[in-house]
C-alpha cells in the first residue's frame, strides 16, 4: 500500500507564512531594538543549533533503531528521515555564523577576540581558534549530512527493490554514524554552545546537549506523526507506536533532568568561582526562566506521562510534546543568551517571530521531504512486524 503525502497549497501557505513572520520580525527588530545586531546573532545561533539538533535527532533515531534491530519504528521511519533533510539548511545557517566569525559580523564567541591578558583563553588557544573551529564545524556538518543522505537514499532504494542487501548496508552505515555522532555530538556542543562561556567548562556538557536533542527530537516526531494521522495519513500507526514514542519522551525527559541536575549539584556543592560563573548570571538575571525550565522539562512530563494510559492518549502526548518543544527552546535560550546578551536579553516579538520563522522553514523542508517517497517503507524486512505491532494486557 503505497501512500504519498501531498504537500497541498494550504500547508505551503502556512509554512511560508511562518517564514514571512520570521523575516518581518527580523526587519522590525532592526527598527525597534538599539542592540539589534547582537540580539539577532544570539537568536540566530540559538535557533540554528536548536533546529539542527532536532533534525539530527532524525538521523540518530533511525540509526539507533537500525542497530537495535527493532521493528516497530518502520511504520513511522519516514518522519525522522524527512526531519533529517533539514540538516543541509541548518548546516548552511551554521556556515553563516562561521562566516560572521571570520568577518567580524558578530561577537558571539569572545574567545575569538581575546583580551591579551586573558591567561585562561591563552591556554585554550590550541583548541579555540578560528581556523580549527571552522574545520571542526565543517566536518560536523558535512559528516552529518553525508550520513543522513546515505541512510535516506538506501531506505528509498529499498522501496523499489525487495533485496535484503539494502538493509544490511544501512546497518553498517548506521553503526558508522553512531560512532561519528558519539564524538561529534559532544565536540559540537562544546564548540557551538559551551564556548560561548569560554572561561567555563563542564565535562557533562556533551551528554546534556545530547539528552535535550533526543527529547526535543522525539517531541517533534510525535507531533509530526500525530499531525499526519490527523490529516488522514498513516492509518496503520496505532496506540502501540504512540506508546513507544511516549516512553522515549518520558524516559529521556528524566535523563535530561538527571544530567542537568548532576551538572548543577556538583558545581553548587564545589562552589569554585570559575565553575559557578556559569550559574550566577542564570540565577540572578534569568531566575524565573531557570526554574520554569526545570518545571516544564521535568515535573510536567514526569507527572503527565507517568501512567500507561496517558502515553497512549494522543491529546496528552501532543500536549506534552508541545510543552517539551517549548521547554527545550527555553533550555537553549538559557544556554545561549546569558553569555551573548547578558542582562539585555528578553523574550519579545523578535524571539518568538524568529522561532516561528525557523518552524516555518523546518516544516517546509520536512513536508517537502515527506512527498519525496512513500510514507511507508514497504520493502523493509520489519515492515510486517511494525504493521501488526501489538502488545497484550
Amino acid at each position, binding site marked *: 500500500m503505497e501512500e504519498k503525502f501531498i504537500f497541498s497549497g494550504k500547508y505551503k501557505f502556512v509554512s511560508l507564512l511562518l517564514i514571512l513572520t520570521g523575516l518581518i520580525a527580523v526587519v522590525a527588530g532592526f527598527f525597534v531594538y538599539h542592540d539589534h545586531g547582537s540580539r539577532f546573532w544570539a537568536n540566530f545561533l540559538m535557533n540554528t543549533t536548536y533546529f539542527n539538533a532536532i533534525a539530527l535527532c532524525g538521523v540518530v533515531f533511525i540509526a539507533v533503531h537500525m542497530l537495535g534491530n527493532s521493528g516497530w519504528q518502520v511504520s513511522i521511519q519516514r518522519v525522522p528521515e524527512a526531519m533529517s533533510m533539514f540538516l543541509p539548511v541548518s548546516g548552511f545557517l551554521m556556515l553563516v555564523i562561521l562566516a560572521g566569525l571570520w568577518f567580524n559580523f558578530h561577537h558571539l564567541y569572545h574567545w575569538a577576540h581575546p583580551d591579551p591578558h586573558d591567561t585562561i583563553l591563552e591556554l585554550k588557544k590550541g583548541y579555540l581558534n578560528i581556523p580549527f573551529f571552522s574545520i571542526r564545524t565543517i566536518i560536523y556538518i558535512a559528516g552529518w549530512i553525508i550520513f543522513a543522505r546515505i541512510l535516506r537514499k538506501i531506505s528509498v532504494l529499498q522501496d523499489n527493490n525487495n533485496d535484503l542487501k539494502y538493509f544490511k548496508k544501512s546497518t553498517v552505515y548506521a553503526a558508522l554514524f553512531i560512532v561519528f555522532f558519539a564524538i561529534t555530538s559532544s565536540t559540537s556542543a562544546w564548540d557551538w554552545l559551551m564556548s560561548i562561556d569560554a572561561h567555563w567548562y563542564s565535562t557533562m556538557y556533551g551528554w546534556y546537549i545530547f539528552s535535550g536533542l533526543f527529547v526535543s527530537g522525539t517531541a517533534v516526531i510525535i507531533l509530526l506523526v500525530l499531525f499526519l494521522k490527523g490529516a488522514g495519513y498513516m492509518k496503520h500507526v496505532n496506540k502501540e507506536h504512540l506508546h513507544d514514542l511516549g516512553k522515549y519522551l518520558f524516559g529521556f525527559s528524566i535523563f535530561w533532568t538527571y544530567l542537568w541536575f548532576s551538572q548543577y549539584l556538583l558545581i553548587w*556543592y564545589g*562552589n569554585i568561582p570559575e565553575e559557578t560563573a556559569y550559574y550566577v548570571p542564570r540565577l540572578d538575571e534569568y531566575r524565573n526562566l531557570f526554574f520554569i525550565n526545570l518545571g516544564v522539562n521535568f515535573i510536567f512530563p514526569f507527572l503527565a506521562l507517568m*501512567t500507561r494510559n496517558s502515553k497512549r492518549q494522543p491529546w496528552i502526548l501532543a500536549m506534552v510534546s508541545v510543552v517539551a518543544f517549548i521547554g527545550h527552546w527555553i533550555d537553549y535560550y538559557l544556554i545561549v543568551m546569558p553569555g551573548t546578551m547578558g542582562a539585555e536579553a528578553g523574550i519579545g516579538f523578535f524571539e518568538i517571530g524568529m522561532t516561528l520563522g525557523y518552524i516555518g522553514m523546518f516544516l517546509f523542508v520536512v513536508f517537502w521531504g515527506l512527498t519525496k517517497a512513500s510514507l511507508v517503507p514497504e520493502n523493509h524486512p520489519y515492515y510486517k512486524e511494525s504493521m501488526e505491532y501489538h502488545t*497484550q494486557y
Partner: protein
Amino acid sequence: MNTPYISAWFDDDEKLLSGLKVFKEKGIKIADVLTPFPVHGIDKVLGYRRSWIARVGFIGGVLGAASALVFQAWVFTKSYPLNIGGKPFFALPSFIPVTFELTVLFAAFAMVFAFLIRSKLGPGAKTEIYDERITDDRFVVLVDINENHSEENIKKISAQMAEAGAMDIKIKLTENK
C-alpha cells in the same frame, strides 16, 4: 486446605489459548491456569483487569520521597545542624540524591511486598502445588468442582474439555509442598 479440581491438560501455549476461548464460550468457570512460563495474551482471554501494582509503586515512591525529604530537613535544621562548607542548613540540592534513592527503594519494596502478600508467597509460606509438571512442560486449566461435584456435572465438564482440545483430563487434589 486441599481442594479438588478437574483439570484440562495442554502441551502448547497456543493450544491452551484456543482451548481457553472455547471454555469461555461454553461458560465454564475457570479457577486458575497454571503455566511453566508467562503466556502472552492469557490475561485478556481470562478477562483479568490490569494489575494495580503500578499504583502501589507510585504510593511507595511518594512515601519514600516525602520521608527522605522530611527526615533530612529535620536532621539538618532541627536535630543536628552542621555547617558544611558554608552551605545553608536547609540545602535542598544536596537532599536530592538521597531523596531519589529512597523514592526508588520504597517504590521497589512496596511493589515486591505487595506482590508477595497478594500471591501468598514468602519465607515459610505453604504453597499448594497441583502437579509438578506445570513447572516443566504442561499447561493446566483448573475448574473448581467443590460446589457441584455430581457425577453428571463432572462428566459434562470433562466432555467439554475434551472438545476444547485438551490432551488429558484429570481429577485430583492439590498437594502441600
